[in-house]
Every structure is written in C-alpha cells, then in structure tokens.
C-alpha cells in the first residue's frame, strides 16, 4: 500500500512558482533569442527546394522554414489579402503596386542587406514603388515563342501563334494579361495604355485564334513541357525553363527572338506588413541574394539571377544559350513586363474569360 502523504498548502504554491519560473525562463529565452525561430514563406510550387534557400538554411539551422503555396499571382495576392500568416511572399512583375496599395507589404531597409550591392541598380529599381524599396528581385527569365524546328521554319514574330498552318499544335498561356502583351507587341500598341477599342480587337483576334490551340497551358511543367517534348505542341508561348527542359531531352526546339522583342519577367520577394519575424524575413531575403543560392538558381534550374557576378561567371554553354547571356543586344530587344493597374488587370482577365467562353 502506498503511503499517503500529508496534504500540503505549500505544494500548489510550489507548482505555481515552478510554472511561473518556466514561463519566465521561456520568455527570457525568446527575448534573448530575439524573434520566434520560425519563418513562413508564401511560394510557388517547386520553389521550396532547399537549393533555393541554402545560404539561409546554413546560416540559420535552428529556424524552421514553413512554406505555403499559391498557384498564380492573383492567388498569392488573394491569400495575402485573406490574412496569410506568411512572413515573406513571392510574386512576379506587374503586380508590385497592389501589395503597396493594400498595405500588405513592409518597406525594406536595404542597408541591412549584405548582398544588396551585388544587384545592379536596374534590377533593384524593379522592386521599388513610389521611390521606396518594397521588394527584392530574384528569379528572372524570358517569355517568347518556343517552337519545334522540325515542323516550323524560323520564327521571327509573335504572330506565329495565329498561323493556321499549325492548327491543333499551338498552345497559348492561359493568361489575359499575357494575351494583351502578345497582341500589343504584334500591333505596336502601348501595353500600358490599351484603349477599349484596342482591347475589343485583341479579344476578337484571340477568339479567332482559339481553335488553333491544342489547349491553353497553365502549368509549365505539367501541361506545356510534356507535350512539347512528345511533339504534340509545335508552337507555344513559353518561358525559357521549358526550352531548356526540351533541349535537355534532345527535342529539336528553338526559342525565338521575335522582331517585336521577347518579354522578360522578374520574380520579386516582399516582407508581409504583418510579419511575425520581420528580421528573419529580411535575412531570408538577403540570403536569397547570397552567391550559392543565386548560383543554384542559374546552374541547376536555368533561371536568371539578379547578381551580375554570378551571371558573368557562368561558363556552361547550354545555360549561356538558354539565357542569351552572350548576346549583348538581348536587353535592347527585350520588353520588360510593365506594372499594370487593378482596372487593367480586371479588364484584361475578363476579356480572356470571354475568349475562353466563346
């Protein structure tokens, strides 16, 4: 039989004291350690791989990095507006102003970024709104025409997407602003000031083009690349990642340099205005720009990185061809994605849904 212990009034007090001390200790640890040791990143699927944040991981092995995923720029904006717990979010050029207008993004103190000087001023400027730095640029690449050279002669214009000779073997990106961009290049419209009449013409020409498509693609590696590689798609609006994937598979493809110019896009990272760990978030952004992380982006996944020194150090002929690194005129022939307004975004996406519904 267990011996009964005498009830003690001291025991509850002792327990309370122990709990209090533990709480104080934990609080002190938290204060000493600064911020909570976890970070949430709102990302695109595939970007969570450790190669893409290896420097941060090495510098902060104790930090748990959690990833949430968005499927499009609109989705990511929607998630942020709906109160995503993300400290850091990733989106693409054209959408910079929306986060600032909605008060969703914090201004970045670039003096705390140790790798900032490695980024050229033109790239830095892409992350600015009203002269303030809200974002850091990271991945960049092109949009152009990817075509099968066995089936299609040299492509010199974006209008190949409308060529009826390739009916059933064309694939356009499922994106209203992307369609407006292509039409603007072909017809010489000012993309930032497309009129209602021009938009009506754009809608009519994409409606007429619709039967030429095998499908509209919405995921580069799910429903574009596999069919470029299988030979079903001959002509497509594409990013250079798919070009490199098809080349690596030995498919006879080329990436056009249209006379109207390629399109160029840049991925940007921002820090949430409600970030629980703003200092960690800032360090995450800084480490994104660190040399090894940047290099991984280029050498392993064939995207451009914003560090000039990394890009200049690339010797792999394949990557040089994919990113046109050795072409001194490529920037002159490249159209950077402009910032659009919410009204434009809405009008262009509605136009695209009408095209799809027709």
């Amino acid at each position, binding site marked *: 039989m267990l011996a009964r212990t005498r009830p003690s009034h001291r025991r509850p007090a002792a327990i309370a004291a122990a709990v209090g001390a533990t709480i104080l200790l934990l609080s002190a640890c938290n204060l000493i350690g600064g911020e909570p040791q976890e970070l949430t990143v709102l990302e695109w699927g595939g970007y969570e791989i450790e190669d893409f944040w290896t420097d941060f991981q090495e510098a902060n092995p104790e930090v748990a990095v959690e990833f949430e995923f968005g*499927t*499009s720029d*609109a*989705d990511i*904006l*929607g998630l942020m*507006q*709906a109160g995503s717990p993300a400290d850091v979010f990733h989106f693409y050029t054209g959408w910079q102003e929306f986060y600032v207008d*909605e008060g969703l993004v914090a201004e970045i103190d670039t003096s705390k970024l140790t790798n900032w000087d490695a980024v050229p001023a033109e790239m830095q400027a892409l992350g600015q709104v009203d002269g303030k730095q809200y974002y850091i640029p990271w991945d960049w690449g092109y949009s152009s025409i990817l075509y099968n050279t066995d089936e299609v002669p040299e492509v010199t214009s974006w209008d190949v997407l409308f060529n009826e000779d390739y009916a*059933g073997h064309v694939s356009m990106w*499922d*994106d*209203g602003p992307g369609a407006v961009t292509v039409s603007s290049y072909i017809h010489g419209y000012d993309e930032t000031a497309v009129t209602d009449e021009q938009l009506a013409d754009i809608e009519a020409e994409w409606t007429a083009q*619709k*039967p030429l*498509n*095998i*499908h*509209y693609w*919405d995921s580069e590696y799910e429903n574009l690349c596999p069919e470029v590689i*299988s030979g*079903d798609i001959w002509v497509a609006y594409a990013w250079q990642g798919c070009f490199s994937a098809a080349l690596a598979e030995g498919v006879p493809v080329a990436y056009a340099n249209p006379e109207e110019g390629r399109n160029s896009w840049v991925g940007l990272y921002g820090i949430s205005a409600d970030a629980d760990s703003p200092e960690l978030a800032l360090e995450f952004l800084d480490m994104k720009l660190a040399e090894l992380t940047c290099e991984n982006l280029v050498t392993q996944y064939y995207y451009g990185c914003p560090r000039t020194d990394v890009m200049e150090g690339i010797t792999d002929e394949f990557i040089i061809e994919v990113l046109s690194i050795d072409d001194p005129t490529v920037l002159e022939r490249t159209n950077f994605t402009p910032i659009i307004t*919410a009204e434009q*975004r*809405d009008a262009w*996406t*509605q136009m*695209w*849904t*009408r095209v*799809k*519904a*027709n």
Partner: protein
Amino acid sequence: MLGRRGALRYLAVPPYAWLGLFFVLPLVLVIAISLRPETGPIDFDDPWQLSLMQYQIVLETPAYLRLLGISILMAATVAATATLLAFPVAYFLTFRARERATFYLVLLLIPFATSYLLRVMAWRLMLGQEGAINSFLQFVGLTSEPLDLLLYSRAAVVLTLIYVWIPFAALPIYAAMQRIDRGHLEAAADLGAGPWSRFMRVTVPLALPGALAAFFMVFIPTVGEYVTPSLVGGTEGIMYGNLIQDFFTSAANWALGSAFSVFMLVVTLVLVVVALRLVDVRRVAT
C-alpha cells in the same frame, strides 16, 4: 429523462450544425460577396455596399450565357448516358448476381479507392495521340494515323465524365431495384408477360425513382465541373466551372466569380424543379 423523440432530436444537432457551418454559411457568404460592387479579392474590413453589377455582367455577356448553355447540355448528356449505362449494371447486381452481389458491388466501387485525378489522367493516356484507343484503331486498320479528336475535345470531357459517374449512378438505381417486390414480377409472369414486357412494364417503372435520383446526382455537379475539362478538354471542352475557377484564381475577382456561382446554382435548381414537375415520379412508379 429524454424520450426517444427527444434523444433523436439531439442526435440531429451535430449534422445540422455541420451543414449550417460548412454549407449554409459559406453559401450565404458567396451570395453576399456576389452582391459587392468591387473587383479583386474581397477586403472584409471594407464597408458592405450592395450592387447587382456582377449579375449585370453575367447576364449581359452572351459568351458567358452560351457557355452555361453548353455546360448544361454536356451535363445532361453525361447524366443521361451514365444513368442508361448504370441501369444494366444495377439490374445485374439485383437480379442476376445473387450471392455474389456484394462482391460485384465492391468491384464496382474499387475505382473510388484511387484518386479522381489519377482516373482522369488515365483517360489522357487512353485518348492521347499514342494512347490505347488510337493504337487499337490503327492496329485493326480502322485509321491510318492517330485521331486528333479524341483528346482535348468536348467529346473527351463527356466520355471521361460518363466513365467517372457510372458507378455512382448505379447505386441509387440498385437501391431502388432492391425495393421491388418480386411478387410483382411473378404476378406479371403468371399473367403471361414475357421477360422484355416484365422488364419494361414492371422493373423500369419501379426503378425509375432511383434512375431519376441517379440522373440528378450526376447532372447537378457536372454542370459546374472544372477539373475534367481542365485535364482533357483543351480549348473546346472548357465549361462554366472553369470560368468560375478563373475568377477566383487567375482573375482574382471574387465578386464576379461568386455571381457566376450563384447564377449557375439558381439555373441548375430551376432546371431540376422543372424536370421534376414534368416527370411525376410517383405517378410513373405506380
């Protein structure tokens, strides 16, 4: 102490609460959002303004109405075909399978053990240029080269959806057939009715409530279908549900997407009510 009725009432609370929280409340929210005038994701801190602007866009755009019409026709085709094909399956399970009925029923439900996406992706392999169907057609000499029509077409969407729905459609018909009193069939036989006559004049009318339930069980969700058209429909097979998805994702226009959803819901409900009025199930079944 609670009586039996009182206890049953309390047992009903959790499912009603669940439905209220996860069905009625979201539906009310969608309706409320559809009545907001702004575009883009909704900021719930903003003051609520009521507007029919989104419905005006839905109703005044011929392309949207046309696509809804096409989606309804596709859904009706899928529902009718799946129900017709499910009927012999249910008949076999009820009247022919005997003691093996449970085994066959399990076989029928086996596809549900795999992911819906996987089953639809399997159809891509079947319908593709180098897929099983094209290979077979070429092997038997019916075609000399692969048919482009099979994949990325409206037909591909209909075909895939029929396959997906047949097992579902068989269940309510099976349940209805199990309730058929065998005495009716024996009486019909005694009165000189042959097998075909017994089937058409006894089995079909008595199983009709199950068949109608199967039809609507397939029709209602198919009108708003978006996954299958995304995977096998191409540009031709786009359905109304794809536009709703677009408005919530790539267009980030929640108010318009909500108006699309509510409009589709109302049209579908009206069609169901009209159909049920036209076909008086109780009269047919008696």
